[in-house]
């Protein structure tokens, strides 16, 4: 909402201290987002009359305009607009004028012919956004005078207020003024016109068919209207407020809307039909499916059965309720009698219709937030009062109709307010008297007291206020948020991370320490991405995605990570080492999808053992173990270089390499080692803390054993056999060499281990070492591992 400061001052003596007023408004929740200085006359721009125009054979886009600036001298100006005629009065920027955009008008012309100034559009003068042609001034304007004098321009300020949804009343000047006057302790002076009926009965009746959507509809017939230009002051004020003056009737309609937040519409009574020769009137009903009407803006609109229409008594649609009038019943220059609509519609319906039609008007913006159903009467009187300035002969006819529907809010609403509740919520020490003095000036009239509870009348222009807490907020606003104390509550809870959160940080630290950086890919995928990654394409989809390529919720972090690798590769960063900890959303049968937190690590340019090394480090740091099963390779991973990781009966992850076909599909040229984990299994439970074992002070002894083992048997089994054979003398085991080649049978490999043996409390004997050796050989021999000599 843009508020013109001079206009606001109609309703209270607010003055012109813009900073102070801006701060006051902001502190009331009417945040001033922008302050614009308007109405300044650009010095050096004067009125001039077009004497003649002339085209130039070598310049098609410009022509030569000769003007008289009142001194009788004919000046020549090049001009790119052609909207003027001989005799028109235009604003001429004379030589040396500094324009608002910083340009200085110079003599420099075109084709070697000087220009003695520039003719200006409204945009160039900072008066509007119209740059389609030169601004045409009133034809009787004196020449050679500042254009601002002709237009009655006065320097003014436009305050751009960002209104929250709970303040529909502030879509009118009076609402803003009421709050501000109360805050500053000034007298509030809203208009208080009274309506006098001056003519005999002339009725445009009202029939509300759908009262659930239309709570009130008044129709007042006014004759003796002469459509013409508005009074200067009104045209200037509307223009300064950013609204184009059109005609006295339309301007008054807009003025009342801006002033009192009451959208309204004037129909040409002569165009309204009645049923079969009956009297004209209004019928407010829901549209039928696919019914059509042409709105004021010339667009044909098609309705659904949820759109509320204003029809005439012959049931012909003449307006979209609360949004926009129809073209056929518009006021024209010939109009002499109008039927004035002022109405209240259920806000939600207006919002939905405006949304459905993509049609936002000044009226719909107000109606969908909720206007004052009981402000209508003052608004009618104000309309008549203002129109009478240009139509002194107008007649207000008896027989005005005032239809009511079931959705009409109660006129007198109230709620209880406990002083103790105000202070309990705000932490203040306000008394009933304090509260009364804060609420009364904004129309929340307090009665009762001094004992609890007070009764507070809820004004009809504040539909957002229905209960006690709403009034507490009003008290807080007018008391001042900055006068509420500041105190840090004494938390009786000890602040900490949960086990899962602590372990997630540990996991992240381990991965960072391993030189792996954190990625955050988009969790939305294209419909075919999962399949490209070798994953089950069953997924939850977004029903209203921004783009189809981001319409599916990921069930795995893998596709995003592969895209990250491909992105880095394509920017000459091979060897990307990335991890992500993030949610995935597989479909589920429950109230929500089976969402869980996952980890994916990708090591570009690395092979499966690198992923195993990361897994071992993570497992050791987090104190978790998992069964490795190379016979169960998850889809999308390298069939002979990957394994599932199982904890108990559940598959908790996978480790290995990405399937080359998947890499191809993602245009990744490097090998990619990968680790995937379902973090619920890994982070939720804290293992017992590692228990101390004494570091032996006795000497240790190393034993090297190399075994030949068939390729079909995992080295892990040999590892286990050695641990079992060595028993508790083993303190460290290292697989230091894997060899395939001459000396080892085809289909087998040599695995060389170094065992470090140590007793806790004594020196080892040769017999100890020999018995470990024998036990290891025996344990390994059970599955065919043979000691190499």
């Amino acid at each position, binding site marked *: 909402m843009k508020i013109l400061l001079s206009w606001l001052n109609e309703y209270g003596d607010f003055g012109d201290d813009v900073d102070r007023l801006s701060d006051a408004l*902001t*502190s*009331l*929740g009417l945040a001033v987002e922008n302050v614009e200085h308007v109405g300044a006359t650009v010095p050096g721009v004067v009125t001039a009359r077009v004497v003649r125009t002339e085209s130039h054979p070598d310049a098609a886009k410009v022509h030569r305009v000769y003007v008289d600036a009142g001194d009788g001298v004919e000046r020549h100006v090049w001009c790119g607009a052609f909207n003027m005629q001989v005799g028109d009065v235009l604003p001429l920027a004379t030589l040396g004028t500094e324009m608002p955009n910083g340009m200085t008008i110079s003599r420099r012309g075109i084709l070697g012919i000087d220009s003695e100034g520039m003719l200006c559009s409204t945009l160039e003068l900072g008066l509007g956004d119209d740059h389609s042609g030169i601004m045409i001034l009133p034809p009787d304007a004196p020449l050679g005078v500042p254009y601002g004098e002709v237009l009655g321009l006065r320097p003014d300020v436009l305050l751009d207020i960002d209104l*929250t*949804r*709970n303040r529909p009343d502030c879509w009118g000047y009076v609402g803003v003024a009421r709050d501000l006057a109360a805050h500053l302790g000034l007298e509030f002076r809203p208009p208080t016109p009274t309506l006098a009926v001056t003519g005999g009965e002339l009725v445009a009746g009202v029939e509300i068919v759908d009262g659930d959507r239309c709570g009130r509809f008044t129709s007042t017939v006014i004759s003796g209207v002469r459509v013409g230009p508005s009074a200067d002051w009104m045209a200037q004020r509307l223009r300064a407020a950013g609204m184009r003056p059109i005609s006295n009737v339309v301007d008054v309609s807009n003025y009342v809307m801006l002033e009192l937040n009451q959208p309204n519409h004037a129909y040409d009574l002569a165009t309204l039909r009645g049923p079969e020769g009956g009297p004209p009137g209004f019928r407010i009903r829901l549209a039928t499916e696919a019914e059509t009407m042409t709105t004021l803006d010339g667009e044909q609109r098609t309705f659904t059965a949820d759109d509320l229409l204003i029809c005439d008594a012959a049931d012909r649609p003449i307006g979209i309720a609360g949004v926009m009038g129809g073209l056929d019943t518009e006021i024209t220059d010939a109009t002499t009698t109008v039927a004035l609509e002022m109405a209240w519609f259920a806000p*939600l319906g207006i919002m939905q219709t405006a949304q459905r039609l993509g049609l936002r008007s000044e009226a719909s913006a107000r109606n969908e937030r909720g206007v004052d159903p009981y402000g209508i009467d003052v608004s009618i009187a104000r309309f008549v009062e203002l129109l009478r300035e240009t139509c002194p002969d107008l007649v207000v006819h008896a027989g005005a109709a005032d239809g009511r529907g079931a959705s009409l809010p109660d006129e007198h609403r109230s709620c209880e307010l406990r002083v103790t509740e105000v202070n309990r*919520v*705000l*932490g*203040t020490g306000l008394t009933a008297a304090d509260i009364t003095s804060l609420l009364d000036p904004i129309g929340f009239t307090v009665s009762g007291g001094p004992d609890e509870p007070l009764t507070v009348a809820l004004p009809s222009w504040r539909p957002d206020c229905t209960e006690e807490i709403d009034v*507490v*907020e009003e008290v*807080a*606003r007018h008391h001042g*948020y900055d006068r*509420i*104390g*500041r*105190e*840090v*509550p004494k*938390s*009786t*809870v*000890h*602040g900490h*991370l*949960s086990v899962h959160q602590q372990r997630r*940080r540990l996991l992240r630290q381990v991965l*960072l320490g*391993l*030189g*792996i*950086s*954190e*990625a*955050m*890919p*988009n*969790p*939305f995928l294209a419909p075919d991405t999962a399949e490209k990654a070798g994953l089950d394409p069953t997924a*939850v*989809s*977004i*029903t*209203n995605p921004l783009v189809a390529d*981001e319409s599916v*919720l990921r069930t795995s972090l893998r596709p995003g990570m592969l895209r990250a690798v491909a992105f*880095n590769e394509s920017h000459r*960063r091979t060897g990307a*080492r*990335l991890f992500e900890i993030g*949610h995935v*959303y597989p479909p589920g049968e*429950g109230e*929500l*999808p089976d*969402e869980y937190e996952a980890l994916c690590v990708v090591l570009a340019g690395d092979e499966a053992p690198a992923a195993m090394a990361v897994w071992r480090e993570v497992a050791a740091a987090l104190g978790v173990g998992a069964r490795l099963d190379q016979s169960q390779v998850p889809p999308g991973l390298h069939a002979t270089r990957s394994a599932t990781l199982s904890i108990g009966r559940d598959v908790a992850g996978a480790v290995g390499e990405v399937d080359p076909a998947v890499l191809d599909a993602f245009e990744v040229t490097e090998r990619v080692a990968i680790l995937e984990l379902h973090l619920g299994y890994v982070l939720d439970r804290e293992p017992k803390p590692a228990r101390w074992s004494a570091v032996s002070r006795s000497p240790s002894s190393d034993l090297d054993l190399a075994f030949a083992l068939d390729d079909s048997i995992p080295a892990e089994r040999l590892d286990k056999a050695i641990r079992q054979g060595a028993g508790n003398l083993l303190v460290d085991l290292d697989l230091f060499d894997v060899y395939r080649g001459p000396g080892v049978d085809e289909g087998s490999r040599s695995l060389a281990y170094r065992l470090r043996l140590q007793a806790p409390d004594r020196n080892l004997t040769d017999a100890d070492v020999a018995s470990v050796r024998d036990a290891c050989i025996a344990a390994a021999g059970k599955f065919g591992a043979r000691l190499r000599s």
Partner: protein
Amino acid sequence: MIEDLNVARDAALADVAAAASLDDVAALDARLLGKKGELAAFKRQLGSLASVDERKAAGAAVNEALAAVSVALDERRAELAAAARSAAVESERLDLTEFTARPARGHAHVVTQAWERLEDVFIGLGYQVAEGPEVETDWFNFEALNMADGHPARGEFDTLFVDHVAPGGTPGHTLLRTHTSPVQIRAMQAMEPPIYIVAPGRVFRRDTPDATHMPVFHQIEGLVVDRGITMAHLAGTIEAFTKAFFGGNVESRLRPSYFPFTEPSAEFDIRRPNGDWLELGGCGMVHPAVLRAGGIDPEEYTGFAFGFGIDRMAVMRHQIADIRDMYTNDLRFVEQF
């Protein structure tokens, strides 16, 4: 004999002084001091001396000579060892700037860094960290937060809906949470007051990406519910948090605003040292209807809540001009932080 001994001793000392290597010293040690060494030979001549006094004097002289040579040998050995070590050290000279080693550490995402910093500030203020699902029900995301079906404020969230349907439910009631506020409801349902939580997390809006907006971004939400919590506690907490996070020289203020789930509602701003007020987030006293939805009696308890963007904290801290850069996973970006 004494003269001979002195000559021999001086010759030996000269040899020791001239020894050029540790090997030379070892050879001299054997030659001069051994049982059959040159100086030992003098001992054998003692018997040929006539008088006891002469023998005594000559014996003492021989021992002195042996001791002097032995000391000289030790000194020479130490000198040579030190020289050898410094020669070895000298030969190992390295230019420490000759290498271009890539940094080996990984980089946490900028959003994670801001997220953890915020968590840590609130843990210090006595808060626990709560989380919730990113795919939510309409009830938790809107209805429980005092936005019943058809509430106009719903339209301002640009919600993304998904095709999941709860058993017995109707389509169109599962969505990607538009804010972290549903975690408030889940926390109130799961915990008894006093509740002091922050809920960081990922949120979603149907927003076209540009330099300052992403459809997927992050918020942190705070909720305190206890007996006797007032708006003064809210203002004090905002002040304490902003000072802890941005530094002691920032000022904070609350100004009235509107959110369906809090009342009174406020925006909170900070004033930076340059004097500009900067809007950070929304806050307010938890609306009684929201407390009731969380199973808490608003007549017994009051609470406050606040929320703001995490991504923006990262953007401000690092002066990132385009928020989209944070989500490209470009290592050239990631490794800057």
